[in-house]
Structure formats: structure tokens, C-alpha cells
């Protein structure tokens, strides 16, 4: 007869597991919270498990009626979200509506919610994407006709397409056993980026960062990078010659803004003309979001000095290859930025909504009642900002003359 209890107790003694002290747990918790705060402050946007699916729109920037005095109003979402700790992960405009994606961790998986609104004030819940209970969507965007979401499910990294926001088609990406963090539509071509695998052990992974591209959304191919593999891509922008992807080649270990360029979207090269960092940036720098105005590319981010103090930064380029750096005034901690038609930029982040006429000097428009805002989307006459911590939404009407 086997005495199972004794057998297992002997095994436990043989393994001699190390003690975990409450102090160690407290330290781990503080580290986790610190990471979350840093993420919210936009310097660590590009970490592996919480890519924020940044919205990037190529928009014309005029020179009249800048949206410098927008009045923001909090949207009442009571009743549409089941749990107070749910958070929005992404937002986009599609078919005359605003669509936001919310994701909630539940005990044995996750639950996905899609909300839609025509006026940014009255919202309704859309049917969730039908998939398995482990599915998680990081980002949603639109190519005009379709909603395009990206994330992962039990089968691996995936793209989901829908023309009616009701029925969705799942498309697996070749080699994507991991997660697809971001998706964008740039100059008519679709791009998605993410991980090819998983963490095998706490200190070992077989995963690498990858970029996929598609013309029709149905057939995807993995892009090729010569010179240096893709890093964690944050933003993908159009250039006069094609495309530039901006990200971090080191996966956050020794962060630095770096670029890869391509003329066809399939073949990419590690670009020698990299965005410069100031000498004081001894702890590196990272990119939060990029915007293409039609005249130039602007990439917002920050860098950290030897005292771990972070400084907001902007890098500008006309061609995606040659970049200049300048400090940002106003400490806006930007996570997402939109070039507003009519002139100027609206940005959101850990400290609410900000406005800048030139991308350099920023003034706060609202503190959003402490909500960390992560996404901006622009419709026919409104801007909608949604929060990532906790789920919340703010909206503003764009003044007459500053709209499309």
C-alpha cells in the first residue's frame, strides 16, 4: 500500500523548495506596480505582454482653427461594462462610428467587449468576437471597410476581420505561436507585429519579434529584416519612399528608439540613420507613438537620465531616415497622439489630455479625473479618448472649421 502523503512529503523535502518571504512577495508586488506606473507614464509602452496597440493616422495638418481650447466631457459608461477594473485596450473609427475594445481578465481566461457609438455620447455593446476563452485582443483598427483586431487565442497569434462588427473571421499568422500586439493600416497595406513564441522558462525564450504584412487582410506574409532582426515595434509610419517602423531592438532591456525602413513593406533594412538620444540619456529612451502629418513624421517618447528621471522627447523626420531630437515642454507623458485636422496635435497619457500647436510645447486640457488615457480616435466631428486605467471615456466636439 502506498502512503501517498508520506511519499509526497518525502518528495517535498527532497526538492527543498526555497522559502518565499512576505517581504519578497511585497517587493515583487511593488515591482509589478512600479512597472505598471512606468507603463502608464509612456516610457515603457513597448513591453512584451502589454503592447498598447497604438493608433497612428496619416492626416493632413492645416494651419487654421487649431483645436487649442477643446472642452472635454466624461462619457457615462455605467451599465455597459461588467466590472469596474475592466480597461479599454484600443479605439478606432469605423463606418461612422467610434469602436472601442475592452478586455477583462477572468479566472480561467479573458472576456472581450466591443462598444460602439455614433455620437461619442450614447454607447452600445457589440457582440464579442466569437473565439475561445483564452483569446485576448490587444488592438483594433479599421481600413475603412473592415474592423481589424489583433491578439492571440489558444491557437496562437491571430488577426480577426469583420465587415459588420458582428461576424468575425480569424486569420492565423504564419510562425505566430505567441501574440500579435499591434496592427496598422499604412498607405493601404496592413501590418501586424508581435511575438513568434513563448517564454520557455523564466530566463529562456524561443520567441522573437516579428512583423507581418498583407495587402488584402486575408493573406499575410512575414516581413524580412536584413542587418538586424525586428525589435519591439511601437509605431509604423508612411514615408515618401515607403514605410518606417519605429521600436526598440532590445525588448526593453537597454531601450533605444530605432528604425527599420522598407520600400515595399515586405523587405526591411535596419536603418543606419537612427533617432538620436541626448548624452544624458544613460538609461536609454523609448518611443510611445508616432504621427505622420503629411509633411513630416513625429515620434513621441522619452528617455531616462542616470537618476531614473524621465524626460519627454520628440523626434522628427521628413523622410523616415534622418531624425532630429528635441525636448518636449510641458511633461505630458504621452501615450497616444493625433494630428487634428485644422492644426495642432492632441495627445493623451497618464495625466489626461494635452494640446500642442507644434508637437513641442504642450498644455494640459483636462486631467481626466486621474484616469490614465491610452487611446485617441477621431471621427467626423469629435475626438474620443479612452482610458486604460481604469476603463473610462472622454469626448470633445472638434470646433467648426477644424473638422473634415
Amino acid at each position, binding site marked *: 500500500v502506498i502512503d501517498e502523503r508520506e511519499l*509526497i512529503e518525502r*518528495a*517535498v523535502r527532497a526538492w527543498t*523548495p*526555497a*522559502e*518565499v518571504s512576505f517581504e519578497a512577495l511585497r517587493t515583487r508586488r511593488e515591482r509589478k506596480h512600479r512597472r505598471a506606473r512606468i507603463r502608464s507614464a509612456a516610457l515603457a509602452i513597448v513591453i512584451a505582454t502589454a503592447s498598447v496597440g497604438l493608433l497612428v493616422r496619416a492626416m493632413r495638418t492645416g494651419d487654421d482653427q487649431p483645436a487649442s481650447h477643446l472642452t472635454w466631457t466624461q462619457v457615462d459608461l455605467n451599465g455597459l461594462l461588467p466590472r469596474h477594473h475592466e480597461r479599454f485596450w484600443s479605439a478606432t473609427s469605423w463606418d461612422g462610428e467610434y469602436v472601442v475594445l475592452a478586455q477583462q481578465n477572468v479566472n480561467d481566461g479573458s472576456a472581450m467587449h466591443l462598444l460602439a457609438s455614433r455620437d461619442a455620447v450614447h454607447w452600445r455593446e457589440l457582440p464579442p468576437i466569437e473565439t475561445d476563452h483564452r483569446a485576448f485582443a490587444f488592438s483594433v483598427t479599421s481600413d475603412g471597410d473592415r474592423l481589424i483586431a489583433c491578439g492571440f487565442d*489558444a491557437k496562437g497569434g491571430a488577426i480577426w476581420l469583420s465587415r459588420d462588427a458582428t461576424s468575425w473571421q480569424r486569420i492565423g499568422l504564419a510562425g505566430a505561436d505567441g501574440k500579435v500586439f499591434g496592427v496598422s493600416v499604412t498607405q493601404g497595406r496592413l501590418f501586424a507585429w508581435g511575438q513568434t513564441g*513563448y517564454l*520557455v522558462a523564466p530566463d529562456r525564450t524561443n520567441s522573437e519579434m516579428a512583423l507581418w504584412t498583407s495587402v488584402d487582410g486575408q493573406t499575410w506574409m512575414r516581413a524580412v529584416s536584413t542587418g538586424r532582426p525586428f525589435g519591439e515595434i511601437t509605431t509604423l509610419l508612411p514615408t515618401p519612399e515607403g514605410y518606417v517602423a519605429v521600436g526598440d531592438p532590445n525588448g526593453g532591456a537597454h531601450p533605444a528608439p530605432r528604425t527599420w525602413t522598407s520600400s515595399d513593406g515586405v523587405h526591411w533594412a535596419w536603418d543606419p540613420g537612427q533617432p538620436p538620444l541626448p548624452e544624458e540619456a544613460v538609461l536609454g529612451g523609448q518611443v510611445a507613438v508616432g504621427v505622420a502629418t503629411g509633411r513630416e513624421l513625429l515620434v513621441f517618447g522619452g528617455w531616462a537620465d542616470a537618476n531614473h528621471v524621465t524626460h519627454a522627447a520628440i523626434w522628427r523626420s521628413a523622410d523616415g531616415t534622418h531624425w532630429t531630437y528635441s525636448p518636449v515642454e510641458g511633461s505630458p507623458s504621452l501615450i497616444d497622439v493625433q494630428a487634428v485636422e485644422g492644426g495642432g496635435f492632441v495627445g493623451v497619457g497618464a495625466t489626461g489630455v494635452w494640446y500642442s500647436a507644434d508637437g513641442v510645447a504642450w498644455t494640459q486640457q483636462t486631467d481626466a479625473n486621474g484616469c490614465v488615457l491610452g487611446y485617441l480616435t477621431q471621427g467626423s466631428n469629435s475626438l474620443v479618448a479612452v482610458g486604460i486605467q481604469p476603463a473610462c471615456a472622454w469626448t470633445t466636439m472638434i470646433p467648426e472649421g477644424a473638422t473634415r
Partner: protein
Amino acid sequence: MERQLPALQGDENGRDLPPGAVVDSFEDFFIAEMARFLGAMTVIVQNRSEAEEIVQDAFLKVWERWGSVRGMEEPVGYLYRVGMNLYRSRLRRAGVALRHAVHPSRTRDELAGVEARDEAVRLLAVLTPREREAIVVTGYLGYSSDEAGRLLGIKGDTVRVLVGRARSAIRDVQGGDPE
């Protein structure tokens, strides 16, 4: 050999939480449960560092929800369930990853070292992860098959089958073992 929740009724490891007890302080809960939870997870996971990671992450999840968990009838059961879910999640990911892995993992090296030192470890190592979960939750933690089933997210009958297979596998190894 099922016991009716002896692990929840106080034991030599300093546990003093009766079923349904409300523990106000998360720290008290952590101190009461940590050693046993870590021991159980180490045997199930067969890897010290990974078990430690899972145990810490599970406690953190419980801590984040402590306001509601503390009032649960079985906060300990909730802790184990979270731990099992985290383990399975890692197992699933590692399974996908290992299909592509070229080098043998450190887990096997560490296991081989511990196996060489102790027969009990060697006997438990022949079990599948699910069999090991079932026998640890019933035989070590003392849950009944039905309770273990709820904790593991499977039917009580399935637990009984897994425990039966585990016992049979252990007997087979013992029978063929000259020691």
C-alpha cells in the same frame, strides 16, 4: 486513501485555518499557507524556480483580490486553483515552445539531480502532470476527489481515475525497482 480536508484543519506545518475561517490579514494568510503551497507546487511542477514563480504570482493575484477572497468559504481552495491555472497556463505555453526548442531544458537537468537523490521524487516523476496534480491535491493536501475536482476544474470521477492511474504507475515502478 482520501482524507476529509485534514490540511484545512490544522497540521504540523503551522496551519491553523479551519474551513470557512475568515482571515483578516493577507499577511497572516500568506504565512499560514506559503510553505505547504510551495511544497505542493514544487512537487507538481518538478522545478524549484518555476514553482516559486507560480506561487508568488498566485499569492499576488489573491492579494489583489483579497477584499473578496477573504470572505470566501474556501480562500485556500481559491489560492490552489489560481496556482493550478497559472501552472497549466505555463505548461501549455512551454509545450508549444518546447516543440521548437533545440536544447534540453534546465528543468530536466534539475529534475535529474533531485531524482538521483530521492526515490520519492523518482516515483512521482513517472506520473503525467495531471496525475501528479490529482495525487498531490488528494493525497497530500487531503481534499476528497469531488473537492479536488472542483479545485482542478475537472469532474470528481476524473480525479478518481487519475489517482488510480497514478497509484498503478507508482506500483509498477516500485515493483520493477530493485531498491
